[in-house]
């Protein structure tokens, strides 16, 4: 497994751990207006997540052998495709958000200004996830073709 793959898996794992934690915090804040006095409510999962990310990055940056290359031609091609997939996804997602809001609220509907930031954050989080998945899928496919 090369560095690009390792980074993609680490990011994906961070998302898998982080999204439920953040979703829990948001739901609690919006539903009850405060965080419960529990392990999850005290923000420990976020500390664990950050520790996981930092340790993961240290492991990735340390080469397994001196012969390990950072990236080759194939990695560049895979990254380029992943960037393009991410770029196209941005517009599809943003268009989908606009259309869904139109359908829910109607053409004369209105949204608060703070909601725009939430839309932006969600879209960019999803794009980052799509980028990592695109990398992993492409490596998996090329591995399948080889065998």
């Amino acid at each position, binding site marked *: 497994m090369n560095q690009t793959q390792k980074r993609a898996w680490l990011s994906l794992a961070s998302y898998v751990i982080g999204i439920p934690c953040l979703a829990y915090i948001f739901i609690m804040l919006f539903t009850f207006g405060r965080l419960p006095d529990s392990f999850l409510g005290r923000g420990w999962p976020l500390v664990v997540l950050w520790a996981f990310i930092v340790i993961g990055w240290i492991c990735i940056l340390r080469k397994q052998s001196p012969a390990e290359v950072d990236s080759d031609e194939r990695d560049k091609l895979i990254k*380029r495709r992943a960037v393009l997939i991410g770029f196209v996804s941005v*517009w599809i997602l943003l268009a989908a958000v606009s259309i869904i809001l*139109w359908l829910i609220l109607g053409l004369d*509907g209105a*949204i*608060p200004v703070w909601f725009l930031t939430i839309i932006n954050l969600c879209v960019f989080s999803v794009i980052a996830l799509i980028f990592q998945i695109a990398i992993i899928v492409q490596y998996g496919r090329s591995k399948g073709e080889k065998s």
Partner: protein
Amino acid sequence: MNRMQKIAWFQLGLLVIMAVLSVIFTFHFRAKYEYGYLYALELGAAHAYPLIILVVLGPLIFFPKKKGKVDYDERDLIIDRQSAVASFATYFVFSVVVFVAMWLTLGMERLIPIHRLGNIIFGGFVIAVIAGAVTTLVSYGRGKGEKS
């Protein structure tokens, strides 16, 4: 001039036509119906929207990839990736600047019409296409300068 440069010039040309049409329509709506500047501009831009379809689909129709022919090399791949990253980054910066400006001018709780979100996304798309096209042209121009 290779395929990517032709596409970049094509997209920039179309966006210039769109901008000119938007301005013409804006003045038309201002003069005929006496709308406010912002509303007239939104309507004017909306009348130029359909051209965006050509910006997206035009490259596939007018500059199709030739089957069985490899018309790109290593450098083209790098430039293509750079332009996609530049477009993406430009949109990100644009959206953050617009949203922060709205926070500061309107306040967090103020409601904005839903069609304005579409306009922001559309504006962001136009800016991202410009950034991508300009990055492509500048990268090729720089490479040419280094060669000579």
